[in-house]
């Protein structure tokens, strides 16, 4: 978001008296396409997209990055990123990414997955990509529901939370407790980096971006599997205003899904990509 190297905009106005110059400090990253997203107003998928695009810009890897979109609201991600993209079958993005990475080890491969996609139908694929230490990066957007299909319970739905498929609230006896994927994945040997961050405030978003950058750097360093889980909102299916939804992340989700790095390998040599 905040460009590391200050970019001087052609439209900059220099005020000779104040001896100041106007710099463009925030704009759409180049790796984000100009197309408007179909995401609902206030849906943090948009922020997650932008952060990934900014990291790709900063690491200057757009031309050798291939993304894998999931099935979920972000199935359209291929449309929104200005880099090569594939759309995987529901849950299988890590397998597809494995196929891509194994034949092109010098390319940067990332998946972008929702919680239904990654933690439910695709749980075997994420587990084994991690176990193989697959040198890919996973951006995991946890919004506690299945967004695209209309707000059903996800493995990450909070206990007591009402969804269209848990109309009485998620019941511990019937459906168990939320799955904490970051904690689980971090257990696995081949994993280089796992971090859970939240998108509920500008400060947290800045931290999330750092984590995403670190995850991509891990891959560039050949250090193995890296994943960033992002707590995100689904105002539509939560039936909340966007602002309210972010507060809900902070007050309700963060206590269940604590933020932090769950695995953070020592960097190898320097980043190859920059």
């Amino acid at each position: 978001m905040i460009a590391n190297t200050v970019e001087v905009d052609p439209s900059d106005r220099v005020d000779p008296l104040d001896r100041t110059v106007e710099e463009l400090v925030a704009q759409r990253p180049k790796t984000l396409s100009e197309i408007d997203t179909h995401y609902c107003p206030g849906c943090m998928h948009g922020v997650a997209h932008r952060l990934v695009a900014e990291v790709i810009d900063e690491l200057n890897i757009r031309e050798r990055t291939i993304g894998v979109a999931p099935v979920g609201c972000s199935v359209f991600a291929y449309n929104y990123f200005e880099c090569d993209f594939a759309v995987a079958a529901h849950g299988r993005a890590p397998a597809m990414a494995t196929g891509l990475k194994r034949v092109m080890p010098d390319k940067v491969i990332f998946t972008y997955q929702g919680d239904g996609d990654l933690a439910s139908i695709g749980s075997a694929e994420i587990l084994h990509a991690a176990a193989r230490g697959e040198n890919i990066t996973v951006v995991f957007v946890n919004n506690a529901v299945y967004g695209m299909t209309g707000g059903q319970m996800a493995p990450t739905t909070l206990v007591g939370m009402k969804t269209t498929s848990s109309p009485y609230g998620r019941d511990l006896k019937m459906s168990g407790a939320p799955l904490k994927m970051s904690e689980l994945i971090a257990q696995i040997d081949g994993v280089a980096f796992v971090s859970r961050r939240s998108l509920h405030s500008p400060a947290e978003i800045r931290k999330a971006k750092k984590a995403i950058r670190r995850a991509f750097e891990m891959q560039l360093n050949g250090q193995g599997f890296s994943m960033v889980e992002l707590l995100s909102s689904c105002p539509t299916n939560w039936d909340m205003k966007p602002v309210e939804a972010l507060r809900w992340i902070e007050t309700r989700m963060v206590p269940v899904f604590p933020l932090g790095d769950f695995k953070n390998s020592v960097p190898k040599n320097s980043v190859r990509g920059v």
Partner: protein
Amino acid sequence: MQHDVIFCGFGGQGTLFAGQLLAYAAMDAGLHVTWIPSYGPEMRGGTAHCTVIVSDEEIGSPLVRAPSYVLAFNNPSVEKYELLLAPNGVLIHNSSLTSHAITRAEIRVVPIPASDVAAEIGNAKLMNMVMMGALLQCSQMLPFEAIERALEAHMSTRRPELLALNKRALQRGVELAQAQSAGLGVEASA
């Protein structure tokens, strides 16, 4: 006799509910009826529409290419369905929100300032009922009382005060359409 009606508008304008209400009323009147929505990942915020077919015989296709009636709640709907309407079909549109100039000559166009009238009555959400009233008047496919009864039977009973307002909105729709057809002289038969 078969009536094909398409209800269309933005999500949140009560498009699907209006269609369902007509379907309930037709069912309660002992007629055959089908209601079918468009569905999709972009439902929210985007366009919502549904097709209702009312008939005194068994209904084959629940979909129609050229409806005999269109209830258009917004501009994009007018644009789209003007072209698809059956020859001599009736296009009832919410003229409070629509500005699209209609070019087809042989169709009957009934502009109803439904949003404004709803706001007058006291709730912008009643727009769909004003439109429904107009449809009833233009089509005569069901008696006014059938819709009233359907409202009573199928509307959430949590807010009974709304019922009266809804009926009022329906009534105003009928009146506005009456005024229209008075102006037009003969009613086009669909």
